[in-house]
C-alpha cells in the first residue's frame, strides 16, 4: 500500500554511499553531519562509505580523505579503495593490521590498460581471500569475461557487484550463477520485476540495498524494495542483514 509519504519499516544499512567531492561533481552533503541528516530523512541507520576521489583519481589519497567522515559511532563504515600496486596494497595492509578494514572497493585500472585478468590481479585477490575481506566491484567499468574468468580463480572471495543497470540485464543471471559468492547491489537495477525474479531464482541472500548516493537519491530504491513481494524477513536481509553478514559484524 503506497502513501504520499514513505519511511522504511525495517532497519536499513546502505551498502553503497559515496562521500566527498568528485573532480566534476561536488557532493550535495558537505560533511558528515549533513550526510547523517540526509540518511535520517530517509530512515537509513548506517552506511558503507567510500570517498569520491578514489573513483577516478587516487585510491591512496582518496582513502586518506575518508577519515574526516568517520565518527566515534558506527553509523558510517569505511570502505577503502584498492588497486594492484605497492602503495595501494601497503596502505590497505596497514589499515588491516589496525583492524580497520571490513571491505574494500576495486579501483578501475582497465582504462589505464591493466585489465582485470588473473596475471594482473591474482596476488591481490589471493590476499583478500586469505584475509576474508569482501570486495565491492563497480560493474559499469568492468569487462564481464574478465570478471568471470578472474573471480572463478578465487572461489572463496566474497564480492558485491555494484551499479548494475538495465544494460547489464543479460549479464546478471550468468554472473550470479557462475560466481556463487557474488552479491548484487541494487542501486540502479531497474528492469521491470527483476528484483522479485532474482529473489525467486537466487534467494534474497544475494541482493543488497545500496543507494549509490550521491550519484543517486537515497529514497527511490528503498521505496521500491518496500513495494515488492519480498517477505519482511527477506526485506530485512536485503536492506541490512546481508550486508552485516558480508562485513562479518566488523565495524571499521
Amino acid at each position, binding site marked *: 500500500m503506497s502513501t*504520499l509519504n514513505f519511511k522504511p519499516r525495517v532497519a536499513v544499512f546502505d551498502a553503497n554511499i559515496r562521500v566527498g567531492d568528485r573532480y566534476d561533481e561536488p557532493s*550535495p552533503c558537505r560533511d558528515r553531519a549533513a550526510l547523517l541528516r540526509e540518511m535520517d530523512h530517509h530512515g537509513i541507520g548506517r552506511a558503507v562509505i567510500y570517498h569520491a576521489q578514489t573513483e577516478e583519481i587516487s585510491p591512496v589519497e582518496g582513502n586518506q580523505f575518508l577519515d574526516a567522515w568517520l565518527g566515534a559511532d558506527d553509523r558510517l563504515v569505511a570502505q577503502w579503495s584498492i588497486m594492484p600496486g605497492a602503495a595501494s596494497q601497503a596502505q590497505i595492509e596497514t589499515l588491516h593490521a589496525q583492524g580497520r578494514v571490513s571491505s574494500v572497493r576495486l579501483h578501475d585500472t582497465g582504462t589505464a590498460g591493466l585489465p582485470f585478468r588473473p596475471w594482473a590481479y591474482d596476488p591481490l585477490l589471493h590476499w583478500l581471500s586469505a584475509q576474508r575481506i569482501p570486495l565491492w566491484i563497480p560493474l559499469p567499468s568492468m569487462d564481464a569475461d574478465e570478471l568471470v574468468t578472474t573471480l572463478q580463480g578465487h572461489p572463496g572471495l566474497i564480492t558485491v557487484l555494484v551499479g548494475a543497470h538495465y544494460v547489464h540485464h543479460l549479464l546478471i543471471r550468468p554472473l550470479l550463477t557462475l560466481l556463487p559468492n557474488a552479491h548484487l547491489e541494487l542501486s540502479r537495477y531497474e528492469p521491470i520485476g527483476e528484483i522479485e525474479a532474482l529473489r525467486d531464482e537466487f534467494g534474497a541472500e544475494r541482493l543488497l540495498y545500496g543507494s549509490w548516493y550521491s550519484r543517486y537519491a537515497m529514497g527511490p530504491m528503498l521505496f521500491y524494495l518496500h513495494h515488492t513481494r519480498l517477505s519482511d524477513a527477506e526485506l530485512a536481509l536485503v536492506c541490512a542483514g546481508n550486508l552485516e553478514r558480508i562485513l562479518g559484524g566488523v565495524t571499521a
Partner: protein
Amino acid sequence: MIDGTQIIDFHGHVGRWDRYGMLDEPALLLHAMDAAGIDRSCVFNIFHPDGTTGNDLTARFVAQHPDRFIGFVYVSPLLPATMLPELGRAIDQLHFAAIKLYPPYTPWPLNEAPWAPIYEFANARGLAVIFHTGPEPQSLPKFVGEIAPYYPNANFVVGHAGNTPIERAQAIAAAQAHPNVYLETCSTFRNPGVIEQLVTEVGADRVLFGSDLPLMDPRPQIGKIITARISDAAKRLVLGDNARRLLQIN
C-alpha cells in the same frame, strides 16, 4: 490510487526490447503498477517508423485493460506521407489521447521542418505531444522552447526533463518561458534533488510523473516523487492531477 489521488504514469512503452529486459507482458506491468499504487499508464510503441504497425500493437495492448492503459500515437517523419493520415486514424479511430515523438530515431532535430505537420495537427486538435529529450542533437530540450510559442493550443511535454544536468537546465528554461511546456520525470539518472529542482523552478503544476515502464520498473520512478522533499499537494499534482488535466480525464 494513493491517498485519494488517481496516479497516472505519463511515459510507458509497448513492445519488447529483450536484451534490456523490456517485456510488455500485461501481468508484469500490472503487478508493478498495483504494488506502487499506479492507476493508469500512458503507453506507445516507438519501434515502427510507419506508425501504423506500432499503433495497432498499442491499441491491442490497451484493449486488454482499457481501464489501466492509455494509448498515445507514434509517428515519424521518416515516412512523411503516412504521418498525418496515421495521426488522424489513431486519434479518431483508436481513440488515443496524445502524441509521442522520438527524435533520436530520425536525423532531424525536433525544431526542424519535417516535424512541423505533427505540431500543426496537435495544435489544431489541442493535443499533448511528449518528446524523448536528452543530450542527443535531435532531442535537445531547448528546441521545445523554440517551437512551443508557435503552437499555443498544443501542450509539449519534455520527456525525461532533459535527462542530464545541462539538458535539464534547458528543459527548465523552456518551461519557465512557455506555459504550454511540461516536464516529465522518468530517468535512469535518479540524481538527488532533481524532483525538488523541477517543482521549485517550474512549479508543481507543470511536472508530470513518468516511469518508462516496462524498460524500467515504475516503482523506483514513483519512489523519486514520493521520497522527494516536496509538499503533499505538489506530489498530488505531479503524480496524477496534472496528467488528468492535460489528457482531459475526469
